[in-house]
């Protein structure tokens, strides 16, 4: 596209556009080339789009020079200071009253395991465990978390030893892209306790008789996990992973990593096919 740029075309920049191009900070070499392209794009009438990209680039360049910038917002409106326990550690945060727990975890505490999927309580990717209960961190204001104990996906493993639910998700291939997985696993971990406590669901046949240690059928697991959406459609494997942890019955692993020899053989095969 840059090659097709006709330099004889003259398009006037507005005062704002010219000022923004003038005032760009020093960028890396890569940024320089990109800036040149974007400058050309701006003169070609893609002005608003290109200038928006330039402004973003400026903002990111500023972040690179000072990592502190991430943690020091210019101004917090209606600030609220809350102390809570995150994965066992006491944390104190000063947040804009609008900040959700999800944004607080990701942007303030660098705990980016909890994912922002829909940000509207429809997908479950942001699921965390607060005081033993799974909840949606995207619909929880950080300001409401004073004194609470929050467990995220980062808090499940014990050092290098994976939580059994994490290990089961890997063994049962319970994901493809992995974006929903932290939420799925937090949800599944809390579900194990709900079953132990004898909690019921919409598909429970008899809600009047109570019993601890409810044995969950696959249908029960599906109903109780319905708040976690997986767009890759790994549902059968997610149910299998949860059922393995829940039932304690070890399932056979149906896949293995390639051994080095298998990898070599596969590469040779590919080369052969490529020359045909």
């Amino acid at each position, binding site marked *: 596209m840059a090659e097709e740029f006709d330099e004889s075309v003259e398009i006037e920049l507005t005062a704002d556009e010219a000022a923004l191009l003038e005032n760009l900070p020093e960028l890396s070499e890569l940024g320089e080339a990109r800036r040149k392209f974007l400058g050309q794009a701006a003169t070609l009438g893609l002005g608003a789009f290109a200038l928006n990209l330039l402004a973003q680039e400026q903002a990111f360049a500023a972040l690179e020079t000072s990592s502190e910038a991430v943690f020091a917002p210019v101004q917090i409106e*209606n600030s609220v200071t809350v102390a809570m326990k995150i994965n066992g550690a006491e944390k104190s945060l000063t947040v804009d*009253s609008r900040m959700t727990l999800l944004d607080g975890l990701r942007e303030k505490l660098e705990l980016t395991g909890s994912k922002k999927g829909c940000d509207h309580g429809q997908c479950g990717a942001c699921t965390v465990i607060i005081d033993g*209960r799974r909840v949606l961190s995207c*619909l929880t204001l950080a*300001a*409401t978390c004073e004194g609470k104990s929050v467990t995220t996906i980062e808090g499940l493993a014990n050092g290098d030893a994976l939580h059994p639910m994490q290990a089961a998700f890997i063994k049962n291939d319970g994901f493809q892209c992995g974006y929903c997985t932290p939420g799925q696993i937090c949800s599944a971990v809390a579900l194990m306790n709900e079953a132990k406590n*004898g909690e019921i669901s919409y598909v429970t046949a008899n809600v009047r008789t109570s019993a601890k240690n409810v044995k969950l059928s696959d249908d029960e697991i599906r109903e109780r996990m*319905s708040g*976690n959406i997986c767009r890759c459609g790994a549902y059968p494997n997610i149910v299998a992973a949860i059922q393995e942890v829940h039932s304690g019955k070890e399932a056979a692993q149906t896949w293995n990593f390639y051994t080095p020899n298998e990898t070599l053989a596969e590469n040779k095969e590919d080369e052969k096919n490529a020359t045909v």
Partner: protein
Amino acid sequence: MRPFKFSSANDARNAVQTVSANQTAKFLAGGTNILDLMKEDVERPTALVDVSRLNLTQIKSANGGLSLGALAKNTDTANHPLVRQNYPLLSQAILAGASQQIRNMATNGGNLLQRTRCSYFYDVAMPCNKREPGTGCGALEGINRMHAIFGWSEKCVAVYPSDMSVALVALDAVVKVQGANGQERSIPFADFHRLPGDNPEKDTNLNHGELITAIELPKNNFAGKSYYLKVRDRASYAFALISVAAALEMDGNKIKQARIAMGGVAHKPWRAMEAEKMLVGKEATEANFKQAAEAEMKGAKPLEHNKFKVELGNRGIVRALQMAMNGGAA
């Protein structure tokens, strides 16, 4: 989201006074609906008063029935032994709604105050008399598959989304509220939510600043024969196309009392009085169930895209009554 002042209340009286004194202040409990609406710029409070720490979480026997604290979580209510044993219809209805994560956050009082999920209400670029009175109704001549078949007006055809409330209206619940001067009042559940009429912006008959403190359930004999049926586009985690709460009390082989309410059909949980009247004194047969369903559904006025709800309602009432008769949730 627009900026707002946040405060946490430790006393119901103070919370009510704070919100009463500011027309643009709101209570915050579970937050599952209001935060979503604030992100969409539908709700624009200038102040939120967090009431979730108030001591209104008890579920206890009261006056022969049960009192549900307004701030008890939906999960705790659905799983409470007294609710499961004496009001299994309510347990089922709560568990038919939302997801476990949301039920863990949502409170009983907040569940009642959910706003419609009408897509024209959510889209601030669209006209909506509920969101912005006087702008018109996008759904009346628009995409109205999910909308009302009973009690709608030219101003609004939205439906009320709560499952819990459908069971509560069937169970003759009473809502206890506290007002600005500390005075309390009781609102029968059937009078709590409103039909849209000329003022669809008003979902309920609560005054600004009034706080729900409890929901009371009278004693009844429906526990052995009740069922909450929910029909939706996917198996779980979706709002109802239609839902039916059904409860029966038998006297020998005759129906002594019947309670039927529907969700997903009107601007409020719809008590099916015509169907109930038809059943009293009759035997619990499929023919009688069908007659009762038809008595109710003949009053339906479907829109362009939701005519299917009339037949679905007919069959749903019959199925829910059959399930209730067979022990349903019990």
